[in-house]
């Protein structure tokens, strides 16, 4: 009796589930196109007498391309060129499969006064995602363009942009008397607007941005025979302060995330070890004590750990140590050599220089599974530095026997050489976002 009843219920259930329509079809999408988000950036319309030199559209388009996350559609494909919200025909943009549309205009208000209007639309939803206005002089138009790129980047990727940021780097060139001239330079993240911060006949090493995006720490020398000096310089005011004067060598200062301490490599105790310098208290603490060479410290984003390069196990490899000291743990085991590691903003990846037998390449090390993924081809790639949003990596490389800077998207897909300077360029450092 019960069996009959159950069978009846089952029949009923089967009947219910085999309703005469197709049960909702489910399709799982796991792969993507990965060519970047197709975006149409319409040339900004200019209204006025004196057209500024800066072309906002080109700056924005180049920024977006460099990030590897966008596919900036060629203006030749555009069916219309709106400059205001009332002129948009979304159909024109759906047709060329743009997911996002950027329009804007630059209006001259007076002598060297410009008003910039910018709008970002979701093409398929016909929805405004961002709209901003600036009133600036012509010298600030590049920065406006980078801010436009940042708004676009954040709206479409969900991660804050890092275009309106700066890079610091060192150049080396010979003057007329064949003497080496070292310059500490600061430029926009795309390499434009380069400005000299310091010029000296003696080497400048390891510029490092403080988290405030204003102060730079670096190592320089007063003479051939002087020991290394650690300086901190405010790039906006030019004010600088000497933190340490060493008898021996020093290199690779790295700011703690709270901006109050510097980790660096000193050789004051007869050996190359990692020290931590408390800036406000001017107090130095030794972090590592090992006969091998420990150098190139970098903080984890939460400030609890540091990674550094050490040859304590033979060839240079990356080790990790608590900021409070204690035993160091070896992280990299693959490859011939690994060096110069630093954390991405999420603290999950480490970018580093790796030598796997094909010269020095830039690689990303995944701390979760200890895998190392190569981003560049080498053979002389050096000094990788993450953009503050972790989306790009800048590094030094060689082109035609000359050191140049290059940028690579974090997925390794887009690489670009930054043509900054006639001379040799070294040791880039990417600032955090301006505050």
């Amino acid at each position, binding site marked *: 009796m019960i069996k009959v009843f159950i069978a009846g219920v089952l029949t009923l259930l089967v009947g219910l589930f085999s309703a*005469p*329509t*197709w*049960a*909702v*079809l*489910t*399709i*799982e*999408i*796991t*792969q*993507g*196109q*990965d*060519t*970047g*988000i*197709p975006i149409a950036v319409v040339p900004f319309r200019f209204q006025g007498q004196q057209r500024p030199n800066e072309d906002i559209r080109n700056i924005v388009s180049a920024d977006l391309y460099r990030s590897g*996350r966008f*596919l900036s559609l060629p203006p030749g494909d555009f069916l219309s060129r709106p400059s205001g919200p009332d002129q948009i025909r979304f159909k024109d943009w*759906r047709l060329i*499969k743009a*997911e996002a549309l950027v329009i804007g205009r630059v209006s001259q208000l007076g002598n060297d006064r410009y008003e910039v209007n910018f709008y970002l639309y*979701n*093409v*398929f*939803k016909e929805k405004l995602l961002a709209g901003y206005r600036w009133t600036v002089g012509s010298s600030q138009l590049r920065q406006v363009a980078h801010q436009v790129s940042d708004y676009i980047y954040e*709206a*479409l*990727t*969900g991660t804050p942009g890092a275009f309106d940021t700066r890079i610091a780097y060192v150049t080396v060139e010979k003057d007329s008397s064949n003497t080496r001239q070292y310059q500490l330079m600061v430029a926009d993240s795309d390499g434009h607007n380069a400005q000299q911060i310091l010029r000296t006949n003696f080497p400048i090493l390891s510029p490092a941005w403080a988290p405030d995006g204003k102060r730079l720490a670096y190592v320089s020398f007063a003479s051939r025979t002087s020991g290394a000096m650690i300086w901190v310089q405010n790039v906006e005011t030019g004010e600088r302060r000497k933190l340490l004067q060493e008898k021996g060598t020093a290199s690779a200062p790295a700011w703690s995330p709270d901006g109050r301490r510097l980790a660096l490599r000193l050789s004051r105790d007869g050996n190359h070890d990692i020290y931590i310098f408390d800036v406000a208290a001017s107090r130095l603490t030794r972090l590592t004590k090992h006969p091998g060479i420990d150098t190139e410290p970098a903080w984890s984003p939460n400030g609890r750990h540091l990674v550094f390069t050490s040859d304590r196990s033979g060839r240079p490899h990356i080790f990790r140590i608590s900021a409070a000291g204690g035993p160091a743990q070896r992280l990299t085991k693959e490859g011939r050599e690994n060096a110069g590691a630093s954390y991405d903003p999420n603290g999950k990846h480490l970018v580093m220089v790796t030598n796997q037998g094909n010269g020095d390449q830039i690689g990303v090390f995944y701390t979760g599974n200890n895998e190392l993924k190569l981003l560049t081809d080498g053979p002389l790639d050096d000094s990788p530095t993450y953009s503050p949003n972790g989306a790009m990596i800048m590094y030094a490389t060689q082109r035609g026997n000359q050191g140049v800077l290059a940028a690579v998207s974090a*997925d390794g897909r887009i690489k670009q050489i930054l043509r900054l300077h006639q001379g040799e360029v070294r040791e880039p450092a990417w600032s955090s976002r301006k505050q």
Partner: protein
Amino acid sequence: MNRAVRKFSRPVRAVILAVLVHVAFGLLLGLSLSFKPQVIEPSVAKPVKAIVIDRSAIEQEEKHKAEAKKKHKAEAEKKRKAEAEKKRNTEAKKKHKAEAEKKRKKEAEKKRKAEAEKKRKAKAKKKRQAEEAREQEKQAAYSALGSLVGAIKRKIEGNWSNRLACSGQEVTISVKVNISGEVTAVKVVGDSGDDTCRRSAENAVYKASPLPFPDNPRFLKWLDQEFQIIFKPGI
């Protein structure tokens, strides 16, 4: 006329006239006699006792009466019987007729039922055939769509340009299409995925429109034109 009258002489005319007068008087006399009979009723004394003058006559009379009555009665009886017979006949006839009718009806009903059964069977057969045809069409529709699942997947994947926006996430999008496969509605199911991830998935679907869809309009009624698309970036 005047000539004829003139034929008689005056004395003749007088005689004729006299005769006519006499006849007239004689007639008048006859009339007066017949008009005035002047009969005087004899005054008869009232009899003290009635005397039956003719008994046989009375008996005869009574006999007559009885016979008449008898005859009348017989006739009435005859009539009654006749009527009863008539009535009986009528009823029998009526009954017969009713029975015939009943029989006829029964047969008609039987015939009707047989026809209905035949019809019903034919209908059931037709229905079964229609159901089989529908089932075949349904299966054909399902397999037509089933064979397009890969194409739908590839087309959407080919348009998912911002997979990174969904890394570590999963978003389910409900998509409606029309007969041409054109996307008519896109909706995020539940609260899966963040804004950027959702947008990247929605855009992929919009850009992939029209999606591959069976182009047989007969299949349409079998196919739910709503899909669930799960965006889940693989490694």
